[in-house]
């Protein structure tokens, strides 16, 4: 029952963190009352203009005019709850935000014209999720693979070179690479589109199913690769078969006519490459160091002494033992990816959550900013929780380690 108790504890902690994070956001977003002042002024201006155009109002004597105006203004302010004291108001905002009852945007709208913040956000969420999850998975796979290889050839020139490369690439955030990639691949070599989600005008909408072949192919290739590593020699053919099938899917997709989703995926290559390039280094470097540490342990010697193949020792003993800390570092990289997405997406003009945040900043659209920060906090909390879960599944020692 240790795992369940541990997970419950973590869930509780994360939930509390989430609530506090949202509350902090609400308080800051309200600028300790500043946004309310702005909103009040907006109401005031709107009413002024509205009344100025009303001939019946203009015929009234000034005293009546002032009275009617003040009444309407106060009702409007009251209706929006702007006169409440600070604490209850912020608590109300927080509960609304946590229930994802995000209100209406003041400036922005979704592509179908809705001003509901939830609609705007959920229209863009999938794009960001697809882009950054794919990029991070690719980076993780490449990084772990490179890290294992580096550990195997520790202290060789190959290892030294890649170590320096890893250490230096992962300190630079993806948007800086993005700028350079746009200049080199988009403008210099002109091989890839430099930004946007689709070409303009977009190609006709295709069935959603066309979006998946490359992902399926990548999954098959990596699955087949892992299978071929873990299976016994005779059954490895299955793994190779799956890899070949994955490549076949990829080629078939490549030969298929150019459609909406393919267009979209081509546009995602550069941003994904920028993200992957800035993330893979932390994977390969941590993997390398952890694997080298684990390789010194006794059970690895024991496994070697039993005459197991070096490859099996690496994948079954070393990687298994080194995986919990590797998985933990995923939390930090993913967290960085979510928040760093603001500028990466802006640079690539990619209409996801980050770009939305940028637009909301430019337009001072407070409800959207609060809503987005809430969604970011939620994404982070969910990521960390999922990692906790996989952590406890991966590492049986967790029951012993935790009090």
């Amino acid at each position, binding site marked *: 029952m240790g795992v369940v108790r541990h997970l419950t504890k973590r869930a509780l902690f994360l939930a509390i963190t989430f609530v506090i994070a949202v509350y902090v956001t609400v308080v800051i977003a309200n*600028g300790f009352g500043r946004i309310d002042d702005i909103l009040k002024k907006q109401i005031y201006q709107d009413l002024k203009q509205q009344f100025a155009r009303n001939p019946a109002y203009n015929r009234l004597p000034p005293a009546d005019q002032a009275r009617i105006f003040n009444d309407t203004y106060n009702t409007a302010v009251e209706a929006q709850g702007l006169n409440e004291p600070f604490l209850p108001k912020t608590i109300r905002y927080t509960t609304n935000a946590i229930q994802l009852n995000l209100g209406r945007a003041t400036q922005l709208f979704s592509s179908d014209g809705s001003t509901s913040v939830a609609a705007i956000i959920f229209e863009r969420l999938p794009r960001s999720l697809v882009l950054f999850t794919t990029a991070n998975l690719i980076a993780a796979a490449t990084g772990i693979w490179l890290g294992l290889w580096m550990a195997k050839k520790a202290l060789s020139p190959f290892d030294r070179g890649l170590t320096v490369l890893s250490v230096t690439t992962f300190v*630079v955030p993806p*948007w800086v690479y993005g700028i350079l990639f*746009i200049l080199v691949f988009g403008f210099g070599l002109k091989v890839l589109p430099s930004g946007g989600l689709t070409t303009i005008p977009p190609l006709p909408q295709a069935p959603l199913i066309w979006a998946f072949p490359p992902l399926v192919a990548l999954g098959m290739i990596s699955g087949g690769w892992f299978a071929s590593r873990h299976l016994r020699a005779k059954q490895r053919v299955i793994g190779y078969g799956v890899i070949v099938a994955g490549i076949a899917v990829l080629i078939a997709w490549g030969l298929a006519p150019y459609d909406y989703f393919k267009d979209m995926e081509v546009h995602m290559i550069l941003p994904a490459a920028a993200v992957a390039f800035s993330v893979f280094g932390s994977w390969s470097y941590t993997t390398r160091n952890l694997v080298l540490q684990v390789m010194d342990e006794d059970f690895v010697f024991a496994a070697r002494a039993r005459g197991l193949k070096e490859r099996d020792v690496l994948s079954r003993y070393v990687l298994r033992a080194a995986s919990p800390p590797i998985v933990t570092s995923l939390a930090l990289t993913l967290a960085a990816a979510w928040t760093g997405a*603001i*500028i990466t997406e802006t*640079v690539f003009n990619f209409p996801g959550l980050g770009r939305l945040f940028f637009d909301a*900043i430019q337009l001072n659209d407070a409800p959207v900013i609060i809503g987005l920060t809430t969604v970011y906090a939620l994404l982070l909390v969910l990521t960390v929780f999922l990692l906790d879960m996989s952590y406890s599944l991966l590492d049986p020692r967790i029951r012993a380690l935790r009090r």
Partner: protein
Amino acid sequence: MLGFLILVALLVPLFAPYSVVQAWNDPSAWTNNPKLAAPEWSEIFAGKKLPRTILLPYNGETGGFTKARVVVDEAGQTYVTVVLRSSFSFQADAFPSEIALYMTTVFGNQSGTQIRMFWDRPDGEEINLFDATPTVRAPFENTFSLTTPAIKGDPAYSVYANIRNWLIRKNITTQTEWDQLYPSRGGIYDSPPKAEVLLMAQLNHNMLDPYSAQVLKGTYAFRIEFQGFARTDDANARAVIYGRVYGIAGTDGSRRDLLVALLWGAPVALAFGLAGALASVLIQTILGAISGWYGGVIDEFLQRAADFYLIIPTLPILILLGILYRPSIYGILFVLVIFGLVGATTKVVRSIVLSVKEEQFIEAAKSYGASRGRILFRYILPRVMPYTFALIALNVPAFIFLEASLSFLGLGDPQLPTWGHIIGDAYSNDALFASRAFPSGLWWWVSFPAAGIIFTTVAFALLGYAFDKVLNPRLREQ
């Protein structure tokens, strides 16, 4: 790398004092530079000679306009005629980006004061570009932009009309073709003709398309006739033929020399990154040591706080703060340190302290009655400090990039030309969009500051890595 950076950071304030930063925000300090000019060395890649900016200074300065002033009294009326001339040799393979004429004029209250401007081409053509009335008295300058008109009344509009008449007279084009090429509604062009191309292109039909027109090389001349009606009337002129390349790093959309900002970015980034990393890592170290040493409730609280700080979306919250308070660079630093009170370093230091705690010299200190605080600060922290140096070096890039990110979003210090600020400026001026005039975007505007940031952070990353190797014997052995 780091040595080079520190050298730059130390030398820049010596060579370019802080007044340069103030001039950075003063648009009038940069009027003689071309707008959006690539670096001069980029013509190697372009494969042709690109024009530099040519300055034709005032009469009285070396190489300036020559002036001839004649005063005639006739039938009780004074006529003052000033003729200003200057010529320049143009040998580049591309057209200049703009041509502007600035005049100081002294004139009385009589109406009819007039300026007539003529443009002499190497092929012997002379075009009367505009006839205008000066509006501003010396010492202020009348600005006559020949190529980028602001409003319909601008002399440039008569420049266009005069060029058109000239070309029709020369049978290069017809009125109908001109109207098709440059549709104008109510006398205002949707996209005005490029006067700098038409004025300096070889006289054939190709000149109508700015991308296939060929440059007519040779000596061009300005001739300006000023007609005044009071004895004191006078005029002086200077002209700027703006080039397409400038300096080592090019210019931005406000004609500013990017080299200044690039150089100034180094000390700012170094100071900001070091100060931020130093403050936050030291605070985190002390808190981590306290957490590990005292244990109990304090430990639990600090660890939960560290977890919390790792989870909250820092950048969005920082952006919110930036929007609402528009902090200066010190304000940003302060907020960043507040948001880094506890964090990953706290956890690392705590684990180190937990192992140090069990060592003999702590036992010894306890046994002779040292207080807990004394042990923490005199015995434990010195043991932890070496790790802290590595962590500081590794944290500098994070701070540099946070500042750059905020500046990119336009939320940084509005006065300081930091690298992130330049990239943000460039982005909002469409530097990352390819147009026909700039098929590679405004690459010099974004790539140099980006390279500067990468260079600095990589230097610190390598330093941190070197520290890491020294301090983690396990990494060294293998």
